[in-house]
């Protein structure tokens, strides 16, 4: 028997078995592909392409390079560190005229301004009076604004002259280009992104943990309670889903603020004095409390769906084999809920990382997370910066995902 399997097998009509199998499967695969094709197209259109665009925008911005061809040429011809000569100023003047004609000074200025503040108004101002520029251009331009002599301005234009740039990522890492083109950290007062990335991940981690601790017993209860009671409890769990985010957040404010319900109750019970009112909102505590509430269902549901299908006979078997109830929980029940824990935690963590309305409203001074800054840049149409920050956030989440896969295994994930 062993010899037969070792030899090359053929079908009844003499074709190699492997080829026949491959052909049979490829037909099935083609049909399966046709079935998923609409979804695939949908995902590509609504997810893959936008993400690709986002990544593209994070290091591509041709606002300046496309509108200042003469300067681009001059920067190409002269290496970094060259002092701008009359040719450079002539190129500048020519580009300013172009910008005035095409109304592109704002766009170009915006790009340079990302690298160096206050250059936008310099460029728009200069472009406005570009008609009257005449040689010698250096004097003429300096007459409009003497900052045109500033090497920092020229360095900023040089790094904007290429459509592809890592500047946005530099900014997202609290770094900048020095006047000589080298990379340095920004002044201490301006460092914010790295700190916020760190804080965002830390806070999301805490929220995930709190959610897990709160959700586990609830999910267990839901899974073991008789249907009618479980349904009622489930409605309570899902209630946050059915309430608008702002209503929910406002009710938390009413409850938690200094003059709020919780403090009033504690006060009337004599637990705290009037000047000892607890600060539970407009700080990190508030963010954690409210986001835990908002995200709790995302932890409970996967846990519940996993727990519901764990038959009670496993725990009984463990007990009959001599395990105490704690050992049974730790060695038998917990490992089997791991897919739910993993799915719930990943879900809550990823959602927490991207949340910005709640922390903005209840987080006070501490409440800014990285997503608030992404939102800020979006609102100011600085898509490149928003994209760079988002890309880094995405990378961070992917790293965590990878870690998760290494530690627990992604096949151990059950979302419902």
């Amino acid at each position, binding site marked *: 028997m062993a010899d037969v399997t070792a030899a090359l097998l053929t079908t009844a009509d003499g074709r190699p078995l492997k080829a026949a199998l491959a052909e049979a499967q490829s037909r099935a695969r083609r049909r399966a592909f046709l079935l998923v094709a609409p979804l695939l197209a949908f995902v590509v259109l609504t997810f893959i392409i936008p993400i690709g665009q986002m990544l593209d925008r994070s290091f591509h911005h041709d606002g300046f390079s496309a509108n200042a061809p003469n300067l681009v040429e001059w920067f190409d011809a002269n290496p970094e560190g060259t002092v701008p000569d009359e040719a450079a100023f002539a190129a500048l003047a020519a580009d300013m005229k172009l910008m005035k004609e095409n109304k592109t000074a704002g766009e170009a200025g915006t790009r340079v301004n990302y690298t160096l503040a206050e250059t936008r108004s310099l460029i728009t101002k200069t472009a406005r009076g570009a008609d009257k520029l005449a040689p010698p251009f250096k004097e003429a331009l300096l007459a409009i604004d003497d900052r045109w002599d500033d090497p920092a301005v020229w360095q900023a234009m040089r790094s904007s002259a290429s459509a592809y740039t890592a500047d946005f990522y530099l900014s997202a890492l609290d770094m900048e280009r020095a006047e000589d083109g080298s990379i340095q950290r920004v002044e201490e007062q301006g460092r914010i992104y790295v700190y916020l990335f760190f804080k965002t991940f830390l806070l999301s981690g805490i929220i995930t943990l709190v959610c897990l601790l709160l959700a586990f017993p609830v999910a267990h209860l839901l899974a073991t309670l008789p249907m009618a009671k479980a349904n009622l409890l489930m409605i309570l769990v899902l209630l946050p889903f059915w309430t608008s985010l702002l209503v929910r957040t406002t009710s938390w404010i009413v409850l938690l603020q200094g003059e709020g319900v919780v403090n009033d109750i504690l006060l009337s019970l004599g637990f705290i004095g009037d000047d000892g009112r607890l600060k539970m909102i407009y700080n990190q505590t508030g963010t954690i409390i409210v986001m835990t509430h908002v995200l709790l269902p995302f932890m409970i549901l996967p846990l519940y769906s996993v727990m519901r299908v764990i*038959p009670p*006979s*496993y725990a*009984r*078997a*463990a*007990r*009959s*084999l*001599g*395990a*105490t*109830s704690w*050992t049974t929980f730790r*060695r*038998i029940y917990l*490992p*089997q809920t*791991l897919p739910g824990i993993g799915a719930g935690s990943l879900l809550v963590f990823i959602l927490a990382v991207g949340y910005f309305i709640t922390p903005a409203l209840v987080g006070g001074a501490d409440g800014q997370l990285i997503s608030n800054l992404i939102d800020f840049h979006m609102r100011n149409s600085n898509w490149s910066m928003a994209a760079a920050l988002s890309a880094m956030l995405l990378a961070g989440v992917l790293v965590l995902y990878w870690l998760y896969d290494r530690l627990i295994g992604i096949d151990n994930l059950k979302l419902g």
Partner: protein
Amino acid sequence: MAAASHNDAFVVFDHVQKSYDGTSLVVKDLNLNIGKGEFLTMLGPSGSGKTTCLMMLAGFETATNGEILLDGRPINQVPPHKRGIGMVFQNYALFPHMTVGENLSFPLEVRGMGKSEREAKIMRALDMVQMGKFANRRPAQLSGGQQQRIALARALVFDPKLVLMDEPLGALDKQLREHMQFEIKHLHESLGITVVYVTHDQGEALTMSDRIAVFNDGRIQQLAPPADLYERPDNSFVAQFIGENNRLEGTVEEIKDGRALVRLNTGELIDATPVNVSNKGQKTLVSIRPERVEFKAELLPADAHLIEAEVIEVIYMGDLFRTVLKVAGHDDFVIKSRNTLGQRVLTPGEKIKIGWAPQDARALDPV
């Protein structure tokens, strides 16, 4: 094996009652002594309370009333993990996140056993069920029969004195089930353990058990060795539940020398052995096994009463013929005759006379 008395019994159910909802009793006044080393089977229709009894013994349900003793000690207050009872579940309950080896290791680990000792025991238990090569597989990678063996090995690996099995073979096909019945029986004999076994397959119960407790409606209807149960059912439920059975209603005409004469409602007279009847004029239900009915008069005692029958259908079953007759107004009277050389084969429509030895017909419950 003789019935154990209350004193030397290994497991005792003493007036045990169980109610889940406070309005109805699922187990009604259960009294049962199980001897050391005995193989006792609880047999009964679905919902009759077998699993409930097992769960009370294992400690997962508490008796609403009454006492359960294990080895002379009351165990109502002992938590399940301290009872030292091995258990095989209906769905095996093998831990899916552990390999076979880890599953077997679990009860030994929680008992704080050292690694080398554990491994020796695991190997022995696996060899016992011929699964020595599968220690590193996960339960999901095993067939149903293999999982069943592992569940058995796991219940035995920590040397429990008592093993409970709740329909362990329910999910297996007929052939495998018969094979496993043999293996379980074999293990029981070689290890000398006490087994309480639940099934609703009477064949299984008959082949494996020392004694069978027939459950119905929360009560033990009869507790007896398999042969007694089949040959001498105490009541019509048992007679009906164990094996095939023909029933005829009538009135006792006469009781003499341990023999009863019963006049059927249609007028014929038949022979019977009085079981639950003692007086003339009592109504009764007579139960006769199909294979004990004879239609060749020459094989019957001379004084046997014969009654008329009409052949309705003859079914060929290989080793025997199953013939359905119309007798005393019933058209579901069955007889079985062996397919021997020269056996006379009946044809539908044929009119015959049938009869039986008086000890083969049992006049049971008064009706």
